[in-house]
Every structure is written in structure tokens, then in C-alpha cells.
């Protein structure tokens, strides 16, 4: 088995390349930090395994996801490294390449996105590059599948065929060179570390690489530890950087070729003139989101969803009922399957169109490169609350699922900002909450569906931002925020990538329908059909009703006057989708239309809105709680998140309902 590691700067098309090379596809986006953990795939018909690592600017990590790469190189030794570079930004891409080449593992460099380079009117002589860098250099354009056959042939070869490269040796200043040599020698002699690796370790240590310094401390590498003060006092790190940069500049100027000046397509600048406009940037951002919700709720999603529901509640339920009667199923079993599972699980599945349309929109935004601009136009607002525009991206991803949103917060540089972003992520309205919004807006706000849902999303954002400000003051975060965001070239979104992104985000939803939503529905069916006296036919005597009625006084002040929604809220902690399926079971309805009518009867517009706000903000689902625990490394934060969100949601719903009641 040959192992190839894909390594490169963020946004160089590594993940697209990975998906083209291997059977498995990973998640792709046109902005920094899409890959936050490493992914592994296999090249078709071969024994070559490819590992996709998160994009990094250098091996010296600033963020949590970047340290994945350095740790990988410290602990594993891949047979080959494929260094993916963005051809039109070779200068800074090579800064990383140099660090990798110094490791001495065989490297192939590919100049990816080669079409962007050609369009800019110049090209590089590959042979010169290859000679100077001491490794093969290829060109590719993963988006159009150019140059992939060659790359694949390079990667699919036996371990024995890969030629051991000697590490790249740069002409560092005398003093630095001497320090590296001395440290490497004693590491090799005293610690039996492979000479090439020792050399690399020494350079990285001197260059103030935090992960390598930790590694040295852990393994008590005395030759390095004892010289630390000397290295730092002499500013060796700066000298290393300067040497590398001048090496790269020399290499590039030797290799640059001017092409016949081609027509310069300034698509990116043209779009950017509009969407990053100093004044209209923010309204455009809001407009794009409004359009997204219009598409999901008014134009495409809801009509399809209504048709699905008709099919499910009409022919399918009818047919299942008949079939079960014929085969002699007990009434109880029939009730479980038809009123419980088909109505409940099916009732959630009919929301697939809305959710997929929303995910498709987010995927298009990601693939086109707009996300980085969103970070930019929102930065000024985020700065006020002590975060930066980049924190906005995990929050937007949180619209899909809070778990992935929290994971994406790893790309944030400052630990405190990361913690704050993690804590506010659950306030972002994830897709699981969509079905319940849809039901309520259809019942009580039929003419302003998209607007009401959008207002909930924005309320989620506003609460998240206010809490962020609160935490910022509480934690006394004084660290400076690092806000440096690259604005990639726009791409015309490619259909298959958008589809993959949509499917990747959406398939969890379908899978959950078969697992946790199924389980939640069965649970609520049990609770609503059994009472203290065993199987009950009157739902009013069931456990669910008892439980709901006990808690009713607590929920009265926020406008809930029936027990059904309360029982449904309790099951919602399993997964937020379960709320809608529970409502379906508890109101004893078999189709959406009937449930909507029921909701319309037992809620007013005001109490419905208060309930939706409560649902938006109350306890995160199990999966999110678990992720908060593991990402913050403490159960206390997870518990805190549960308590605080319950408190906030209740107070806000209370205020909305009470003030609203006074006004009307």
C-alpha cells in the first residue's frame, strides 16, 4: 500500500483534486478551511491511498486545523507528498513547498488552477522549476479534469519505484546553517533520529514552530531545548523566512515566461465591484439570503413538499392501512405503523425538498467563492462584538447543522474567539428546525412564509451576536483578533460539486429519519398510547398528556395553551426534527394539511411566533451537546450551553408573548 499525502495552501483545489483522484468524495468549497480533519481515499483500481490534509499556509500552525498537518508529518511518514499549489499565486505557495521539500520525503508539485495563470498572461518553465526545487513539477486543473491522467500515473506506482529524494538544502546564513547542522548531528547521534528528519526538526524548531517545539519538549530533545534562547535572541526565524523568500523569488524569476498577452477576463473584479461594495455589500449579503429562503420556501421547496405530502398521506397511508388489515395486524400495530411511523417519519421526510434547496444554495455560495466576501462585508459588525468576519462562516455552516458549524470554528485563530464561536453556534437555526417552522408558518402566516422564517434566522444571528459580545466582556478577551482573509477567484459553480455538497449535507438528514427520528417517533407513540392504566384509546389519558399537563403552567406565560407541543418539545432534544413528527403523532393527524389546521386552531399568530422563537433557541440536540463537549474539552461548557440556552429561549419567548399581548 502506497500512501500519498495531499498538502498545500488553503483554497488551491486540493479537495477537488482529491475527489477527482479517488472514489470517495470529500466536501469542497471555495473558501479557506473546508477540510478541518484529514480525509482518506483510494485511487481507483490501485493500491494507492490518498490522504487529504487541511490547507495550511505554513507548517507552523496558527489554528487548530492547521496543526493537524504538522502532527501528521511528525507522526507518519507518507511514501509520497503531492504538494498542490495555486499556479497564479506560486510565490507564497512555494513557501510551504520549501518546508515540505526540506523534509526529504519524495514530493511532486502540481501547479493547479493552471487556467487562471494562463489567463493572467504568463507561464512558468516547468523544467527550470523542477531543477531548482529538485522534484517533479506538473500542471493540472482539477475543476476541468486537466492533467489528472498524468498525475494519477505518477501516484499509482509501487513503493519501490518512488525515488528517494534528497532534501532541499537552502543557503541559509552561516550562523543558522551551523546551528541546524549541530542540532541535527546530536539528534542523530544521541537520539537515533533519522538524519533527514533530524535536519528538518532542527530547522522547524529554530523557525519557532509551536508544534515542533512541543514535540521536542515531550521527547526531551536536549540539543534543541538547550539552544532555544539563543535561536530566538538571534532572530533566526526571520532570517530563515528571508532566505526562503529570496530563494523563491530567484527561482520564479528564472522560470517565468511571458505569454502572448491573452484577453484578460476580469470576471472576479467585475463581480467584486458589486458584491464587496463598501455600502451595498451588506444589503446584498442580506438580499442573497432572502433569495435563498424565497427559493426554499416559496418558489421551489414548498410546492414539491406539498405534493409529496399529498402522496404520503393519501395513497400511501391508505394502502398501508388496507394491507395491514388484510394480513391481520392488530389495531395497535396498525396505529403504530400508520399514525406513528408513516405520519411521523414521513412527515419529516416530506421536508427534503426545502432542505435540499437550501443546502444547494449554500453549496453554490461556497463553491463560487462568495463566502470569503461574506466574511469581509460582515467583519465591521463582528469587530464590534469582538469577533471577526471569519467567525461568520462557521455560523453560516451552522445553518446546515450546528455540529459541522462548531467543527468549522477550528479555523479561527484565537482560542477565546473559537470558544465564543462554539458557544454561540447552537443559536444558528439548523436545518433540523426547518420542518417545524414550515408547519407553523403554513398554518398562521400563509402569505409571509419566507419572511417569517428569515426573521427567525436573523433573530438567531442577533441572539448569537449579543451573546458573543456578552462572552467577550465576560472572558475579558484582550487578544487581538487575527483577520486576514483571502479573496479567491470566482468560479462558475460546477453542477456536480454543488450536488455533492448538497448531498453531503443533506444525506445526514435522510439517515437521521431512519434512526433517531424513527426512534423518537416510536417513543412519542408509546407515550401517547399508554397511560397509567396501560393501553389507552383516549390520548388525554396518556403519559404524554400527563407530562405535558404537568408542565403546562410553566409554558403558559409564553403562550402555549395545549399540552401537545410541550411533549413534542421534550422529544426534540433527541433531534430537532422529532418535534414535527411528534406533533403529527400527538395531534393524531395523518397528513400535513390536517395538522396545519389543528395548529391554526390552537395557536394565535403571536403565540406561534413565541413558540418558534423558543424552538429556535432552546436546548441544543444531543449531537451538538456532544460536539461542544469534545471541542471545548469540558463537560462544563456543554452543561452551561444547555442551561443558558434554556434560560435565553424562555426569557425571549416570554418577552415576545407578553409584550405582544399588551400591544394587541
Amino acid at each position, binding site marked *: 500500500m502506497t500512501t500519498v499525502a495531499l498538502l498545500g495552501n488553503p483554497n488551491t483545489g486540493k479537495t477537488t483534486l482529491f475527489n477527482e483522484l479517488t472514489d470517495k468524495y470529500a466536501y469542497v468549497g471555495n473558501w479557506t478551511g473546508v477540510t478541518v480533519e484529514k480525509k482518506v481515499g483510494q485511487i481507483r483500481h490501485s493500491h494507492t491511498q490518498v490522504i487529504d490534509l487541511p490547507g495550511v499556509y505554513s507548517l507552523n500552525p*496558527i489554528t487548530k486545523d492547521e496543526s493537524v498537518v504538522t502532527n501528521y508529518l511528525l507522526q507518519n511518514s507518507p511514501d509520497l507528498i503531492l504538494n498542490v499549489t495555486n499556479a497564479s499565486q506560486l510565490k507564497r505557495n512555494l513557501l510551504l513547498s520549501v518546508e515540505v521539500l526540506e523534509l526529504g520525503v519524495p514530493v511532486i508539485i502540481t501547479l493547479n488552477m493552471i487556467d487562471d495563470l494562463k489567463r*493572467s498572461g504568463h507561464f512558468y518553465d516547468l523544467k527550470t522549476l523542477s531543477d531548482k526545487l529538485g522534484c517533479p513539477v506538473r500542471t493540472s486543473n482539477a475543476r476541468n479534469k486537466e492533467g489528472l491522467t498524468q498525475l494519477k500515473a505518477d501516484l499509482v506506482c509501487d513503493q519501490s519505484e518512488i525515488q528517494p529524494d534528497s532534501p532541499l538544502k537552502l543557503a541559509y546564513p552561516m550562523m543558522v546553517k551551523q546551528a541546524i547542522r549541530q542540532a541535527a548531528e546530536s539528534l542523530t547521534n544521541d537520539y537515533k533520529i533519522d538524519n533527514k528528519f533530524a535536519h528538518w526538526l532542527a530547522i522547524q524548531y529554530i523557525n519557532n514552530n509551536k508544534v515542533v517545539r512541543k514535540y521536542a519538549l515531550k521527547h526531551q530533545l536536549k540539543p534543541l531545548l538547550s539552544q532555544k534562547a539563543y535561536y530566538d535572541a538571534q532572530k533566526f526565524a526571520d532570517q530563515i523566512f528571508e532566505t526562503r*523568500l529570496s530563494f523563491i523569488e530567484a527561482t520564479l524569476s528564472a522560470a517565468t515566461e511571458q505569454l502572448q498577452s491573452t484577453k484578460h477576463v476580469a470576471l472576479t473584479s467585475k463581480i467584486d465591484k458589486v458584491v464587496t461594495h*463598501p455600502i451595498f455589500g451588506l444589503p446584498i449579503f442580506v438580499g442573497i439570503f432572502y433569495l435563498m429562503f424565497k427559493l426554499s420556501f416559496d418558489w421551489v421547496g414548498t410546492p414539491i413538499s406539498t405534493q409529496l405530502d399529498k402522496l404520503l398521506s393519501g395513497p400511501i397511508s391508505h394502502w398501508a392501512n388496507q394491507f395491514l388489515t388484510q394480513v391481520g395486524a392488530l389495531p395497535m400495530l396498525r396505529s403504530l405503523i400508520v399514525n406513528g411511523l408513516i405520519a411521523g417519519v414521513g412527515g419529516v421526510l416530506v421536508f427534503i425538498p426545502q432542505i435540499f434547496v437550501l443546502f444547494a444554495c449554500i453549496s453554490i455560495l461556497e463553491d463560487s467563492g462568495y463566502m470569503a466576501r461574506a466574511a*469581509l462585508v460582515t467583519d465591521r459588525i463582528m469587530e464590534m462584538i469582538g469577533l471577526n468576519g471569519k467567525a461568520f462562516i462557521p455560523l453560516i455552516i451552522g445553518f446546515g447543522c450546528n455540529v459541522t458549524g462548531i467543527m468549522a470554528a477550528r479555523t479561527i485563530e484565537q482560542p477565546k474567539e473559537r470558544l465564543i464561536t462554539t458557544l454561540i453556534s447552537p443559536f444558528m437555526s439548523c436545518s433540523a428546525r426547518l420542518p417545524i417552522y414550515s408547519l407553523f408558518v403554513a398554518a398562521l402566516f400563509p402569505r409571509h412564509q419566507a419572511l417569517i422564517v428569515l426573521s427567525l434566522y436573523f433573530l438567531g444571528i442577533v441572539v448569537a451576536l449579543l451573546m458573543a459580545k456578552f462572552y467577550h466582556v465576560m472572558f475579558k478577551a484582550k487578544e487581538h483578533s487575527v483577520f486576514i482573509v483571502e479573496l479567491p477567484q470566482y468560479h462558475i459553480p460546477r453542477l456536480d460539486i454543488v450536488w455533492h455538497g448538497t448531498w453531503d449535507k443533506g444525506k445526514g438528514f435522510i439517515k437521521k429519519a431512519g434512526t433517531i427520528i424513527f426512534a423518537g417517533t416510536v417513543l412519542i407513540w408509546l407515550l401517547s398510547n399508554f397511560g397509567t392504566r396501560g393501553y389507552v384509546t383516549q390520548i388525554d389519558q396518556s403519559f404524554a398528556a400527563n407530562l405535558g399537563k404537568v408542565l403546562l403552567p410553566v409554558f403558559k406565560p409564553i403562550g402555549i395553551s395545549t399540552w401537545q407541543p410541550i411533549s413534542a418539545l421534550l422529544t426534540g432534544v433527541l433531534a430537532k426534527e422529532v418535534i414535527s413528527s411528534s406533533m403529527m403523532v400527538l395531534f393524531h393527524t395523518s397528513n400535513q394539511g390536517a395538522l396545519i389546521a389543528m395548529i391554526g386552531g390552537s395557536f394565535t399568530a403571536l403565540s406561534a411566533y413565541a413558540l418558534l422563537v423558543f424552538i429556535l433557541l432552546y436546548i441544543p440536540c444531543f449531537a451538538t451537546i456532544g460536539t461542544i463537549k469534545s471541542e471545548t474539552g469540558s463537560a462544563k461548557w456543554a452543561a452551561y450551553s444547555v442551561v443558558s440556552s434554556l434560560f435565553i429561549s424562555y426569557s425571549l419567548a416570554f418577552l415576545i408573548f407578553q409584550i405582544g399581548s399588551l400591544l394587541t
Partner: protein
Amino acid sequence: MKHFMIKQFNGLDYATTQRLHSLGLQVGSEILAVRFYPFHGPVIIQADHQRIGIRYQVFQQLTGGDAS
């Protein structure tokens, strides 16, 4: 659009300096200020055909305080 030259990295924190270095910026690099956001919001700069958004304060530090 206005041309600037990076004069210094003094006064910036370690992480910011390192990230800017990784993007290939150093003392003496030519940068083009493409866009300023109101209320001292972020600045879009361009260097070596790449556009980067940075904070206004960082921009000021880099160019030695002569930002308009």
C-alpha cells in the same frame, strides 16, 4: 486605487505577522489598496495578483500610518 509599500511589521502580534509572511508579504512589498470599508472597516489589498482582506489597523501599521 492607491499604491503603498509595506514599511514595517512592528506592533503587529505574532500570529498576524506570521500569516502575512505566509502570504508572501515582507518589508518592501508593493501593495495596492483596492477598497476601504466605511467606519474604519476592513481594507482589501492586492499583492502579487491576490486579493486579501485585512483590518484597517493592520493596514495602517504595515504602511507606517500614512493611510488616507
